[in-house]
Each structure stands twice: as structure tokens, then as C-alpha cells.
């Protein structure tokens, strides 16, 4: 738990943060958002004492950070910045091992931990020996996150970590970030410029303007009851549609309307089973439960010998469990599919989501609002 108590910070005449009071629950993500220069970074950096406030106190689990040695404090907090700040002369392994080494762990434990966090951010072991200059922006960002997680800190501070990543990779990173958080349950402060990112990732959102906290609440509460015009403008006109993005595919999974088959099942047998059950979709699942492809009876194609062709695809479109309904919808439109398989982060097949479920959800949101 992190508590800001009456925190004020001035730079000369300029008040960067004005009497900030905010309590962040353990294990939650708080998104810090607001216009440029409103004091987000300054608020963040006061937690690990890169900036010291003029007034007020910050407590982590009831203990004032000002009673702690700054170096020790920083080593107990994960820190990720927009420029990532990977050490260019260190390999990926050495970058991640930095803090464990400062903590004097033995080499065996360090090695195990490095591979563990690499796996967490979905990078395989071959990345360990690479240097930052050999990585893509998204990979660098993952290594930055892995490095911050290496010493298993309870608190993570992230300052626009995905800010410099292109939109597509940013979506992927956000997805895996959520899945990682589901596993590790850290207390996270996450600064962003992007309201969609805030809605997508946050348990709570803290909205700042000119150094002051304007609204601090759960995402759905903020979407439903914006405090004032400033917040409304920040959320944008489509905030009802945005509410859809809070809902995750995992809550709309259906386990019917398709069959699953092993990778080596005979085509005729699949067709037979599909025709018997009056279905068109068969997902190929390997022995470890991972989605490997799909068969479908193509009713749009011309019949051959009086039957529609059975088509096999090895890389079917899919969504992940934590993909939002907005994103799921837009992928359905993009791919021209009414049904998409849902997989977990490690590629395991979990069921399907269909267009009707999403429409149902939109309809309900509409009625609830009218009522």
C-alpha cells in the first residue's frame, strides 16, 4: 500500500504537485494521467525519492520513505521509464541481473531468476546474450520490465513505459502486461498520456491537472461519473463505447458451437463429426492444449462432389483471455469473422467468443443507461 499525504512539490515559483492525497491499495494498478506538465512524473519520482517533496509524507506499508536510506529504498522498488534506460554495454542477462547482483544473490539463483523473468515477459532464453542495440523497441521494453521485476519488488513505478512503441506492438505489450500482473499482483503506479491505455490497464485512475488531483476512482466509476468537464473532455465523447473496453473476452467465452480435434485426426472423420453435429468449425488442439489451427466447412465456396470444401488453416485469428470487447469487436470486423477462438497467454485454447455476445453486452449497457 502506498499513501501520499499532503504532498507538495515546488520548483522555484512553480508548483509541480499541489497537496496530493491518495492511497493506492496493495496489488492494484493505478494509472496516473493528465496533460503534459501536470506533475505525473514528479509524483511518481517522489515514491523512490528521485525527487524530494517540500511538504507532506509518503508511506509504503505504513513506513515513511523518508525514514529509509534512498539507495535501499530504490533497490526495493521496480522502476521503468519511457526511454527504458537499458544499459547498452550490458547483455540482456546482465541488465536483468543488475539488482540481484547488488543484492549479492549467488550466481545460480541469479541465473534461475533471470530466465524466470525473461519467460514472464515472453522472451525465450536466446535473448539473454543479446545486447540492447540488437532488440526491437518492444523487446527492449519487455527487458526493461523484466529487469524491474528481477528482484521481485512489491512496488513498481512505470513512467509511460509503452509511450514510444507503435500502436500494434503497444496493444500486444499491454496484453502481456495485464497477464503478468494477474500472476504477480504488484502495487503499480503507471503514468500514461493515453486515456485508452488508462482504461485498459487500470484498476483505478488518478487524473491530475496543473499539479492537483482532479479525480481518483475506479475506472468504471470515472467512466460513469466524471467529476467535471475537464475529466469529460479527457475521456472523450465515446466514453460509453469505452466502457465496453473494460470488459474482457474471458468473461464471454462459450464452449459450444465448435468441436476440437487433435493435430493428426483424419479429415474425413472431422467432416463426419461436423456434419453430424451440424457445425462448421473444428479447432486443432495439440497434446498440451495449445491452439494449432482450425478446420471449417466453407459454405461460401462452390460444392465439390455435392459437398462444401473443408478448409484447413494453420494460423487462425484469435483473441487472448484479457483482450477487451472493443478490441475483440474490432478484430472481428477486421478479419470478417463472427467467431474467434480465445487463448491464454501461453497459447492454450479456452473456447470461443462470438459477435452476438458482444451485441448483447452493448444492448444491455444501453438499457442500463436509459433506465
Amino acid at each position, binding site marked *: 500500500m502506498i499513501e501520499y499525504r499532503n504532498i507538495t512539490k515546488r520548483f522555484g515559483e512553480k508548483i509541480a504537485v499541489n497537496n496530493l492525497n491518495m492511497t493506492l491499495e496493495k496489488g492494484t494498478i493505478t494509472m496516473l494521467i493528465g496533460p503534459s506538465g501536470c506533475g505525473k512524473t514528479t509524483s511518481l*519520482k517522489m515514491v*523512490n525519492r*528521485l525527487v524530494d517533496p517540500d511538504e507532506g509524507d509518503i508511506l509504503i506499508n505504513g513506513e515513511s520513505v523518508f525514514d529509509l536510506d534512498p*539507495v*535501499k*529504498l*530504490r*533497490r*526495493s522498488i521496480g*522502476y521503468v*521509464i*519511457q*526511454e*527504458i*534506460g*537499458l*544499459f*547498452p*554495454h*550490458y*547483455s540482456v542477462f546482465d541488465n536483468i541481473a*543488475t*539488482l540481484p547482483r*547488488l543484492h549479492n544473490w549467488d550466481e545460480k539463483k541469479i541465473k534461475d531468476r533471470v530466465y524466470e523473468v525473461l519467460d514472464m515477459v515472453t522472451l525465450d532464453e536466446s535473448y539473454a546474450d543479446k*545486447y*540492447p*542495440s540488437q532488440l526491437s523497441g518492444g523487446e527492449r521494453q519487455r527487458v526493461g520490465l523484466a*529487469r524491474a521485476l528481477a528482484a521481485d519488488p512489491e512496488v513498481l*513505478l512505470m513512467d509511460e513505459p509503452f509511450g514510444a512503441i507503435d500502436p500494434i506492438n503497444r496493444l500486444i505489450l499491454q496484453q502481456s502486461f495485464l497477464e503478468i500482473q494477474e500472476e504477480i499482483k504488484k502495487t503499480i503506479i503507471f503514468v500514461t498520456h493515453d486515456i485508452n491505455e488508462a482504461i485498459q490497464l487500470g484498476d483505478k485512475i488518478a487524473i491530475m491537472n496543473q499539479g492537483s488531483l482532479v479525480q481518483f476512482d475506479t475506472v468504471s466509476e470515472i467512466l460513469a461519473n466524471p467529476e467535471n468537464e475537464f475529466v469529460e473532455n479527457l475521456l472523450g465523447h465515446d466514453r460509453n463505447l469505452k466502457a465496453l473496453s473494460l470488459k474482457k473476452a474471458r468473461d464471454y467465452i462459450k464452449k459450444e458451437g465448435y468441436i476440437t480435434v487433435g493435430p493428426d485426426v483424419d479429415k474425413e472423420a472431422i467432416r463426419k463429426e461436423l456434419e453430424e453435429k451440424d457445425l462448421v468449425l473444428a479447432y486443432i488442439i495439440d497434446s498440451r492444449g495449445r491452439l494449432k489451427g482450425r478446420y471449417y466447412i466453407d459454405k461460401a465456396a462452390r460444392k465439390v462432389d455435392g459437398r462444401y470444401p473443408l478448409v484447413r488453416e494453420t494460423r487462425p485469428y484469435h483473441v487472448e483471455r484479457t483482450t477487451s470487447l472493443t478490441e475483440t469487436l474490432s478484430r472481428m470486423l477486421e478479419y470478417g469473422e463472427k467467431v474467434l477462438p480465445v487463448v491464454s497467454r501461453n497459447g492454450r485454447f479456452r473456447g470461443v467468443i462470438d459477435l452476438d455476445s458482444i451485441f448483447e453486452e452493448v444492448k444491455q449497457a444501453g438499457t442500463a443507461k436509459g433506465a
Partner: protein
Amino acid sequence: MEFFSYFVTHSDLIADSIIRHFLLFLISMAFAIVVGIFLSIVITREGHEKVGQVILSITGASQAVPSVAVIALVFLFIGIGMKPALVALVIYSLVPIVFNATSGILSVDPGVLEAAKGMGLTKSQRLWHIKIPLAMPVIMSGIRSSATINIGTVTVAAIIGAGGLGDIIYTGLKLNRPEMIFIGAGLAAIIAILVDTVLMYVERKVTPKGLA
């Protein structure tokens, strides 16, 4: 013919001159490197980066001062002999080292330094594990150009009594004996090339992996 006979008859003198030449170079470079890097670390301390910027413009400009001028000034204030020559050499070699080391350290990516600080590296860990290694290629190229200038200046320093191969050249000039000039100049050139080759190798060795 005279060339060879001089070589044979004066082999002791030549050997002494080479050793003295090389010692002047080594001693003054060692001083310049230690003092130069120490100075650069001091003037680039966190929170004092402005000082570094000022020193950077001063050293940048003073690289244009010719070596003879520095030697002449040292002669005016300290006098003649091996010691004043060493002083002149150290001062003159300091400039490119301080210039490069300072600009190398100041140009380390602030994002990297901020991350290092935020992760809990102490001031000295940031200096020795981050700043110096990242500035190393620039520092080394400063040392290399300083060495090139130094070895050239050693020859000139003979005019204030430094000794070394420059002495043979000046004597040759005074006595109008071309073979002495050839030998002095040729050997000085060979030493300069050797030094540069060795340093080029060292430069490659000390550049951290991942920076290339």
C-alpha cells in the same frame, strides 16, 4: 654512406635518444591520463554539469594553440631542461584527454543514468559501472589523439633541452648534416606510428561489447 657511418659511430647516442624520447612520452602521457581523467570526473559530477560544459568550451578552443607556443611559455616561466619539457608535454597532452573524457561522460544517455539511479546504484557505482564504460570509446580516442600530439611535441621540446630524437635533428640542422636529420626524423616517425598502432588496438579492446 654517411648515413650508415653515422649510425654505426653514434649508435650509443641514438639508442640513448630513443630511450629518452620514449620515456618523455611515457611519463608525460601517464601523468596526463591520470590527471586528465581525474579532472574530467570531478568536473562532470552530478549537479555540476555546467562546469563540465564550460571546461568543454575552454579545452575545445585551446586545442588550437600550437605546441611551440606552449613550450615557449613554459620556458619563460620555468626555464630549460627535462623537467620543464615534461611540464609542457603534460599540459599540452591534457587538453584532448580532458576534452574527450568530459564530453564522453556528459554525453551518456540521461535515460540510462536515471534508470541506474532509480534502480538504486550508488553514485560511485553509476560512475564506474555506467558512465566510464559508456564514455570509454570517446575517452580512448582522446587518449589516442593526445598521444599522437604528444609524440610529435616531444621532438619539438628538444628546443628547451628535453633531449631525445629532437636533439639529433636540431644538431643536424645546426651543423648542416642531413644524415642526422634523416635519422632523427625517421626514428621519431617510426615511434609515432608504433604508438598509434598499439593504441588503436587498445581502443578496440576497451570498447565495451554492445556499443560497437
